[in-house]
């Protein structure tokens, strides 16, 4: 019953999406404005219905209802409850349902809370949101129905043990909120083009939605990186895997968008480019969904063998991206580029930021998609991975860091190079000091990590400079947000560079009582313990870790043997110190009653995720600051910054 109710709710939600699109299109015609108010309850009803459908699917998983095909294929009655529930979105159909649920919720949120946008633009925006939803409902209902029944199954096939982790409960929903939240930016852009309303006021209305989606993306990527770091058991935190790249691409576009929308909001510049980026950001989300969901990644051929889903998403992509671009081409003649600016100015720095982020995006896209295209076209199989991405995106990221250091210290419209240099003096000094210290005491470091650390020091100090000599109590919250996010970038880059430059590793086979060393630690293999877990058999190594003459601590990495499906997973033991992490895993038995132990000492690796969290927090501060100003100080926000005063230079 529950499954049928869910399916019915899904059909009704699709009908509401169609109604939302139709209402929007009708009400936009001259003289039909009376229909407009109806679109808000329709959007809310759509969100409610799709949420009910999603809740029904969760219920079938929670009850281990094996008469539902999806549950039988992806769940198991012996799983702990949290993984039964999280398993709902650990598969294709369930994750697509989560996708449209968030899409519906995003639409309803816009319908309910967006007050600043011109009425007709809001109408067009909601209609566009309905159009996107409609396509993905069709995808679910026609080629990925999550509620299909099956008869005669008694026990499910289980969930991939790697996914049986609290990370699954939070990572995909967060990331999807970011992916799909970008649909707001897309719909806003379409709405603004349809109603010819590409203005600073429109940019200010759109900005909080972009920030919101971007925060979720940032949190999702950061958390995903830490998840793979501790769960895969090999100490890596980023693999340039296509699935990871699929989440990085919308983030890069969204980061560029946040910066260009500021130019549009503050200086009425970059109109066409901002609209283009808004289309690009959500297009990247859909491309990411296509990559992950079409099966094209496992093999180009598996895509060709069962192409229905892949072709369906590809068609949706073509319709939405192609449609938006066609609209863009049609209307862009009426959108002038807006104000011009000097080569030394805040705008120029933001444009270079946008350019570099876009080129990094193109690098990631080329590295991810070109091998697929090449294989499809000529059958040649090539791999593009870390060596390519590090060598191409790395230098671009360093350039971006330099722009990031200078950008917030520049004034709008025009500035004097000498003055900029004097404002950056302290930051450049910090960079020089870092360089000196590393050359003298850092040992052998590669060029990229070295430059990364120097850039991090420079950016960290330069990012704090906008707060210098200001009354902190009167500094707007969004300025703190920018400072926090930029310092977060410096912290994260410092972590990446340090991990790459200073990591020490030792992989050994150890007998009981034996001691090996890694970094400043001596690790003694004290013993083994075996015990059953809830749905696996665990083997635990007891390792005594001593640093110098200090007291030993016990670390206990585990090896889990799952049976449904059969798989071996590492449960690393990770100990965080102020200056890094010690990462230990235990493997299988080696010859001579010894056990394989992998040990890593990773100095300052935690900064990677700390920085990510700071970037997200910066986004949150910014969002709160913008919303607060919208609610209280309308006057200040609506006054266009014609004469940029000194204070405005740091907002």
């Amino acid at each position, binding site marked *: 019953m529950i499954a049928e109710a869910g399916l019915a709710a899904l059909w009704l939600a699709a009908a509401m999406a169609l109604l939302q699109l139709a209402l929007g299109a009708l009400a936009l015609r001259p003289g039909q404005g009376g229909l407009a108010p109806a679109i808000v309850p329709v959007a809310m009803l759509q969100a409610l219905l799709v949420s009910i459908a999603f809740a029904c699917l969760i219920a079938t998983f929670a009850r281990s209802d094996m008469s539902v095909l999806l549950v039988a294929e992806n769940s198991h009655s012996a799983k702990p409850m949290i993984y039964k529930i999280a398993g709902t979105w650990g598969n294709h159909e369930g994750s697509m349902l989560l996708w449209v649920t968030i899409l519906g919720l995003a639409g309803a949120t816009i319908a309910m809370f967006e007050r600043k946008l011109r009425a007709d633009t809001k109408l067009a925006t909601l209609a566009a949101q309905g159009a996107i939803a409609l396509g993905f409902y069709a995808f679910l209902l026609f080629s990925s129905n999550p509620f299909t029944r099956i008869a005669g199954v008694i026990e499910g096939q289980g969930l991939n043990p790697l996914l049986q982790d609290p990370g699954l409960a939070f990572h995909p929903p967060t990331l999807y909120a970011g992916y799909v939240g970008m649909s707001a930016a897309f719909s806003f852009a379409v709405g603004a083009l349809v109603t010819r309303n590409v203005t600073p006021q429109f940019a200010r209305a759109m900005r909080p939605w972009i920030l919101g989606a971007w925060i979720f993306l940032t949190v999702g990527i950061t958390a995903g990186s830490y998840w793979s770091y501790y769960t895969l058991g090999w100490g890596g935190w980023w693999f340039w895997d296509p699935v990871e790249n699929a989440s990085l691409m919308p983030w890069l576009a969204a980061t560029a968008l946040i910066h260009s929308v500021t130019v549009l909001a503050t200086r009425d510049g970059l109109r066409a480019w901002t609209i283009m980026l808004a289309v690009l950001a959500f297009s990247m989300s859909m491309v990411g969904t296509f990559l992950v969901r079409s099966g094209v990644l496992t093999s180009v051929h598996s895509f060709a063998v069962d192409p229905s889903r892949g072709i369906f998403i590809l068609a949706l992509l073509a319709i939405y991206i192609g449609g938006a671009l066609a609209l863009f081409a049609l209307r862009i003649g009426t959108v002038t*580029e807006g104000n011009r600016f000097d080569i030394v100015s805040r705008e120029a720095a933001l444009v*270079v930021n946008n350019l570099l982020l876009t080129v990094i995006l193109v690098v990631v896209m080329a590295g991810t998609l070109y091998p697929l295209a090449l294989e499809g076209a000529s059958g040649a199989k090539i791999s593009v*991975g870390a060596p390519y991405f590090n060598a191409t995106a790395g230098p671009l990221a360093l350039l971006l860091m330099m722009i990031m250091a200078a950008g917030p210290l520049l004034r709008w419209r025009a500035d004097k190079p000498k003055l900029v240099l004097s404002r950056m003096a302290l930051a450049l000094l910090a960079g020089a000091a870092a360089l000196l210290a590393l050359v003298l005491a850092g040992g052998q470091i590669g060029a990229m990590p070295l430059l990364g650390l120097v850039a991090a020091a420079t950016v960290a100090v330069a990012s704090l400079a906008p707060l210098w000599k200001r009354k902190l109590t009167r500094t707007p919250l969004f300025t703190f947000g920018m400072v926090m996010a930029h310092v977060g970038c410096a912290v994260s880059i410092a972590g990446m560079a340090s991990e790459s430059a200073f990591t020490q590793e030792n992989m050994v086979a150890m007998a009981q009582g*034996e001691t090996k060393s890694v970094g400043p630690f001596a690790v003694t293999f004290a013993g083994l313990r075996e015990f059953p877990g809830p749905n696996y058999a665990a083997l635990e190594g007891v390792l005594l870790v001593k640093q110098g003459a200090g007291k030993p601590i016990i670390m206990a990495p585990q090896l889990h043997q799952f049976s449904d499906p059969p798989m071996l997973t590492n449960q690393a033991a990770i100990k965080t110190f102020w200056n890094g992490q010690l990462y230990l895993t235990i493997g299988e038995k080696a010859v*001579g*009653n010894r056990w394989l132990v992998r040990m890593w000492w990773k100095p300052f690796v935690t900064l990677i995720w700390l920085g990510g969290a700071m970037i997200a927090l910066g986004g949150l501060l910014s969002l709160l600051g913008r919303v607060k100003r919208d609610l209280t100080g309308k006057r200040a926000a609506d006054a266009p910054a014609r004469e940029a005063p000194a204070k405005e230079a740091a907002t």
Partner: protein
Amino acid sequence: MRRLFALLAALLLAIPLHTGQALAQDYAEESLPNPRQEEQALALMDAIRCVVCQGQPISGSNADLAGDMRRIIREKIAAGESPAQVRAWLVSKYGDWVSFQPQVSPATSPLWLVPLATLIGGFWLLSRRIRIGRKR
């Protein structure tokens, strides 16, 4: 010295031992004794695809085949081969697909040319947006 060590290890292996020390090393899972060589081997392993996994390098895979490839790489590096030689050998055996570092060739050139063209095109567009030399 090394040979003596191996001989000793083989001897020890022959007798069932419970406090094993100095046993034969399995380079699929164990580091090379020479840290410089180990560093080279690790860097190479990061750049070699585990051909039976999904998008993982052999330095981060539990698959048996990945272990075999790690063993081969460590043994070849220990025997004095350069990482480039070992990579070339792996590519000759498994094809281009095994290396995460794409070879530069006409077929792979878009990987570098497309980003480069974007960068140049972007700067060209930017140069048209900028007012040069006019003070306000």
